[in-house]
C-alpha cells in the first residue's frame, strides 16, 4: 500500500486522472488520519470499465480488516456497481483503497476510455465513547470503568462521585478514607447502596458534632455485609468507634439495634475484601444535647442555689451550706463550690458535704476557766460556754452595767468562732482582787 501523508482531508485519484487510467494496474492507497479520527470517503467522480461483479476493473475499499465494497462502472450504466454518493467511513483511522485494471478496455471490439475516479476523504471525529454506551455483550472491556467523555480527536474517562480516576486513566477507585459529616443529622451509607458495594474498600466515615451533643445511630433496611456462619466477619466488616472506643463490629444481614453513642465523635470504618455481592448498609444519625444527672445533696445542710429542672453541657450549679455549716470535700474545707456539666454528661466535681462548723477548743482563760452550758465537750455551731475567774483571788473585768454571766458567755458562731455579744472574739480578763486576805489579822485580846 502506498501511504498518503497524514492529513485531516485530501483527494485520492486513479492514476493519470482525469486522463484514462492505464491497463494492468494494481495500486493500493492507504489513507491515514490522526488517532481519534476515522476516515470518511466520498467519490466525486467515478468512471471505470463496467463489468459483471466488477470482475475486470474495480475499486475496492476496506477498513478495519473488512471490505466495504468493490465498485466499477459509472452512474447510469446497466453493468457495474458505482458507489454513487455513498459515504464510506472507517471505524479506525485507516482506510485502504485498492485500484485494479485488467489488460484492456474494449466494448464490442471498440477500445473504450474511462477517466477513473476522484475521491475526497476527510477525518471525522471518532466517538470512542459510543461503544461504551452499547451493551455489555458487545464491549466486554469498555474504554472507561465508569464514565466516558468524547472530544474531537480523543476521549477521557471520569468516575462517579466517591471514586477517584486512577493513573491508568481508565479505572476508578473509591476514596472514602476521609468522609466527614458535621451536620446535626444526616444519612451515611456504603458506596452504591443499595447496590453492592465495591471491593477493597477502606472507608472512614467521621461524624463530628458540637461538644455536649451525643450521636444516635439508626440503621436502615436492607443491611447486608458479607458474612460467614462460623467466623465473625471474616470478609467485610463495619466497625463503629465512639470517641475512639470501639462500640461494635457488624456484618451479616441482621440490622444492628439503634445505638446511643454518648459521644459527639463517631467513626465508621468499613472494610471490604476483593469479592462479594452484598448490598451494604445505610444509617440515619441524629444528635441530642447531653444532659447531666440532676444534682442531689448528700445531706440536709447542703443548699443548691437556683436549682434547675435539668442541666446540660456547660450548665453549672453552686452549692452553699446552711448557717453554721461549711463545705467540705474529703478533708478539705471549701470556701465555695461550683460544679460544671461536662460534655460527657458528668459533673466535673462530686457533690460536697456540709459539715457543722467547729469552733475548736475555747481559748484558755488565764487565772480562770470555762464550763460548757451546752453539751460538755461539744464545740460546734451554737455550742455555748461560760468563762469564770478563779475567785476569790481574781474577778472578771466587766463593763459597766454588764454582769460576769453576760460577759463570760461565748457562743460558737456560724463563722466557727467563739464570740461574746459584747466583746466579740476577745476573751474576758481575770483581774487580781486586792486587799482581801483570806486570813486577815484578827485581834482577839482587848
Amino acid at each position, binding site marked *: 500500500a502506498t501511504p498518503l501523508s497524514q492529513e485531516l482531508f485530501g483527494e485520492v485519484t486513479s492514476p493519470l486522472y482525469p486522463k484514462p487510467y492505464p491497463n494492468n494496474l494494481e495500486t493500493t492507497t492507504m489513507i491515514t488520519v490522526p488517532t481519534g479520527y476515522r476516515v470518511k470517503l466520498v467519490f466525486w467522480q467515478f468512471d471505470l470499465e463496467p463489468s459483471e461483479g466488477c470482475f475486470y476493473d474495480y475499486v475496492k475499499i476496506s477498513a478495519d480488516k473488512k471490505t466495504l465494497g468493490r465498485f466499477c462502472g459509472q452512474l447510469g450504466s446497466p453493468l457495474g456497481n458505482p458507489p454513487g454518493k455513498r459515504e464510506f467511513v472507517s471505524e479506525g483511522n485507516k482506510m485502504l483503497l485498492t485500484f485494479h485494471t485488467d489488460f484492456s478496455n474494449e466494448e464490442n471490439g471498440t477500445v473504450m476510455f474511462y477517466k477513473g475516479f476522484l475521491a475526497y476523504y476527510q477525518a471525522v471525529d471518532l466517538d470512542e465513547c459510543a461503544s461504551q454506551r452499547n451493551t455489555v455483550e458487545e464491549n466486554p472491556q469498555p474504554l472507561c470503568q465508569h464514565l466516558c467523555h468524547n472530544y474531537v480527536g480523543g476521549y477521557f474517562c471520569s468516575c462517579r462521585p466517591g471514586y477517584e480516576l486512577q493513573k491508568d486513566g481508565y479505572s476508578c477507585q473509591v476514596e472514602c478514607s476521609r468522609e466527614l459529616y458535621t451536620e446535626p443529622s444526616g444519612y451515611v451509607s456504603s458506596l452504591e447502596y443499595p447496590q453492592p458495594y465495591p471491593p477493597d474498600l477502606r472507608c472512614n466515615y467521621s461524624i463530628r458534632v458540637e461538644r455536649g451533643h451525643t450521636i444516635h445511630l439508626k440503621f436502615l433496611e436492607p443491611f447486608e455485609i458479607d458474612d460467614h456462619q462460623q467466623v465473625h466477619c471474616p470478609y467485610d466488616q463495619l466497625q463503629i468507634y465512639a470517641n475512639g472506643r470501639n462500640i461494635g463490629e457488624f456484618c451479616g444481614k441482621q440490622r444492628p439495634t439503634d445505638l446511643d453513642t454518648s459521644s459527639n465523635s463517631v467513626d465508621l470504618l468499613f472494610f471490604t475484601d476483593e469479592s462479594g455481592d452484598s448490598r451494604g448498609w445505610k444509617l440515619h444519625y441524629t444528635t441530642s444535647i447531653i444532659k447531666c444527672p440532676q444534682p442531689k445533696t448528700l445531706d440536709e445542710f447542703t443548699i443548691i442555689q437556683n436549682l434547675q429542672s435539668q442541666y446540660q453541657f456547660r450548665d453549672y450549679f453552686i452549692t452553699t451550706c446552711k448557717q453554721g455549716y461549711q463545705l467540705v470535700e474529703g478533708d478539705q474545707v471549701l470556701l465555695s463550690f461550683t460544679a460544671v456539666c461536662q460534655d460527657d454528661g458528668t459533673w466535673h466535681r462530686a457533690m460536697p458535704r456540709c459539715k457543722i462548723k467547729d469552733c475548736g477548743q475555747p481559748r484558755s482563760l*488565764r*487565772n480562770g476557766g470555762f464550763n460548757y452550758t451546752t453539751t460538755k465537750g461539744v464545740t460546734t455551731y451554737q455550742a455555748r460556754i461560760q468563762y469564770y475567774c*478563779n475567785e476569790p*483571788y*481574781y474577778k472578771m473585768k466587766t463593763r459597766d452595767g454588764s454582769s460576769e454571766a453576760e460577759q463570760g458567755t461565748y457562743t460558737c458562731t456560724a463563722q466557727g468562732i467563739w464570740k461574746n455579744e459584747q466583746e466579740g472574739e476577745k476573751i474576758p480578763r481575770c*483581774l*487580781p*482582787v*486586792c*486587799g*482581801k*486576805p*483570806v*486570813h*486577815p*489579822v484578827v*485581834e482577839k485580846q482587848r
Partner: protein
Amino acid sequence: IIGGKAAKEGNFPWQALSNKYGRGGGALLGDRWILTAAHTLYPKEQDSHTNSSIDVFLGGIIVEEIEKLGNHPVRRVSIHPSYRKDEAHNFEGDIALLELEHSVTLGPNLLPICLPENETTFYEKGHMGYVSGFGITENKLTDHLRYVRLPVAERTACERWLQGQNSNNVFSENMFCAGDPKAKHDSCQGDSGGVFAVRGADGRWVATGIVSWGIGCGQGYGFYTKLLNYVDWIKKEMEEE
C-alpha cells in the same frame, strides 16, 4: 518590827521580801508589780552597784520557806523621779516599783493589796494601820514575818519630836508619821518598802504608806511615804494594771 507579833499564814499575803543591799520589804500590786521604797534599791550614803541584781520572794511568812519557793525575776525597776539618793536627810519620793518578769498566780498566801483612792480618814490622827516585815526585831533579824499595829500620828507632834531629836531630816507633805513614842511599837531596818496597811470600811486592805525612815527604832515615830500622793504615778507606771 518592834513590839509586834508574829504573823500567821495569810495575814499579809501581799508581803514581799527583797534583797539587794540587805533585807527589804515590799507589797504586791496586781499580779506583776512590787511596790517598795526607793532607798532599798538606791540606799543613801552607800555606793550603789547598778549591776547587782535584786531578789524578790513572795507567798509566805517564813524566810527560809519563801526563798525555797524561788526568786521572782524583775523585768524593770522604776524609781520615782523625785527621789534623791545623794540627799541623806531627804526621803522625798521614797517609792519604787518593780515589774516582775512573770505574773504570779494568786492564792491564799499571795494576794495584792489595794491602793488608796481618796483621802478618806486613812491619814487622820489615830487611824490604826498594820506594818509587817522581815526586819529587825529587838536587835535581831527575824526569820518569821512580824507585824505591828500603829496609829497614824499627828503631824505637828512628829515635827516637834523631830526637832527634839535635833534632826534635820525633811518631813514633807508626801510623808506621814505613825507610832507612839511611849508604846515602843515601830517598824525598823529591814522593813523598808513594806506597806502601812489599813482596813477600809468595805473590809478591803489598803496600803496607805511605805516604810521609809525613822530615827532609831521603837523610840518615837516612824515616817512613811504617803502613797495617796503617788497613786497617779503608780497607775501610770503600771499602765492601769
